[in-house]
């Protein structure tokens, strides 16, 4: 519980939409405080009109992703001590997505691109077939050990410069998902998916900046997945299957 004697520190939070600005709040500094704690404190104790998203608050859902001191992060997993190195915090909404208000962005374009990259599993078996048996040690399965863990938080999308420069670029998350499904031996979309990710806004637009890999809160490597897609697309093109 905070008292009026707690030392405070300045926090800049983006308020408004297109014509908005950073607004300063003085927030009590406490031990083990996370950035989500700070935002929640502002909304509950100072300004109830602040709009933001969170759900699990324990680093499982990815809903609380925001830009903190210039970098996309999960605010529930970001300790203030780790990022407020000069004693201040700047909290802004995620980049590269349309701003709704304050710290809330419209995630629709992110998921539209997920769909455009054929990020949906296409089943081939029926209920009358036996369960698919996918040995965990096979190369194809091991290639997606990490990639299946993506929860679609958009931190990578917000961190990718190519997404910022090229509006059609599908982005690291959608392409990571496409790679995951391309390596899923049960999936039946094969060439259709490769065609979806081969176009102008597809995997070839990745320049291996590794910003996505750098920032992914689950330590995934969309860079590696996209490199895998490049290989698959190149093989398909050269063998005439594309």
């Amino acid at each position, binding site marked *: 519980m905070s008292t009026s004697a707690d030392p405070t520190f300045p926090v800049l939070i983006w308020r408004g*939409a*297109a014509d*908005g600005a950073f607004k300063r709040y003085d927030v009590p500094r406490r031990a083990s405080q996370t950035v989500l704690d700070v935002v929640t404190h502002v909304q509950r104790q100072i300004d109830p009109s602040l709009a933001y998203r969170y759900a699990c608050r324990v680093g499982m859902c990815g809903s609380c992703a925001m*830009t903190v*001191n*210039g*970098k*996309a992060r999960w605010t529930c997993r970001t300790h203030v001590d780790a990022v407020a190195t000069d004693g201040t915090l700047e909290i*802004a*909404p*995620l*980049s*590269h*997505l*349309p*701003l*709704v208000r304050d710290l809330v962005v*419209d995630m*629709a374009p992110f998921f539209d691109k997920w769909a455009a990259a054929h990020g949906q599993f296409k089943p081939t078996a029926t209920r009358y077939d036996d369960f698919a048996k996918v040995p965990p040690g096979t190369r194809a399965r091991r290639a997606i050990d990490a990639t299946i863990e993506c929860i679609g938080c958009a931190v990578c999308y*917000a*961190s990718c*410069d190519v997404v*910022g420069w090229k509006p059609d670029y599908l982005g690291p998350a959608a392409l990571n998902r496409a790679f995951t499904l391309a390596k899923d031996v049960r999936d039946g979309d094969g060439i259709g998916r490769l065609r979806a990710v081969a176009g102008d806004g597809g995997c070839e637009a990745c*320049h*291996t*900046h*590794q*910003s996505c*890999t*750098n920032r992914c809160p689950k330590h995934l*490597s969309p*860079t*590696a997945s996209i*490199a895998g897609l*490049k*290989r698959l697309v190149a093989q398909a093109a050269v063998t005439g299957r594309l």
Partner: protein
Amino acid sequence: MVAFAAAAIRRNDARARRHAGFLAFVVHRVSGLALALFLPVHFFVLSRALSDPAGLDGFLNWTRLPGVKLSETLLVLALAAHLAGGVRLLFVEFVGWRAEWQKTAIAAVAGASIAYALLFALAT
């Protein structure tokens, strides 16, 4: 889907770009741009100077001027950096990705490029 009037889209600034992979990209792109713009000039000079060997000797003398020597060294650095960085990209894209090696690979690329450029600069 609800449409938002003139929705703002936030962009990243330099704080999001301070990591090795992005720096490696910038070096690769800038060096590539410099080389691409230099190439037509290079071909033109070669075709003129080499069809007239006496002209080439005169040209080679001109290249000994310090300003020209510096520009040449920078171009050679650009070529070495673009090559080394490009080989790293070909490795990542076609051989495989090793997350733990990336920073080391980028450092090795930088080291090799600078070493070659120094070799060039000191060779006369």
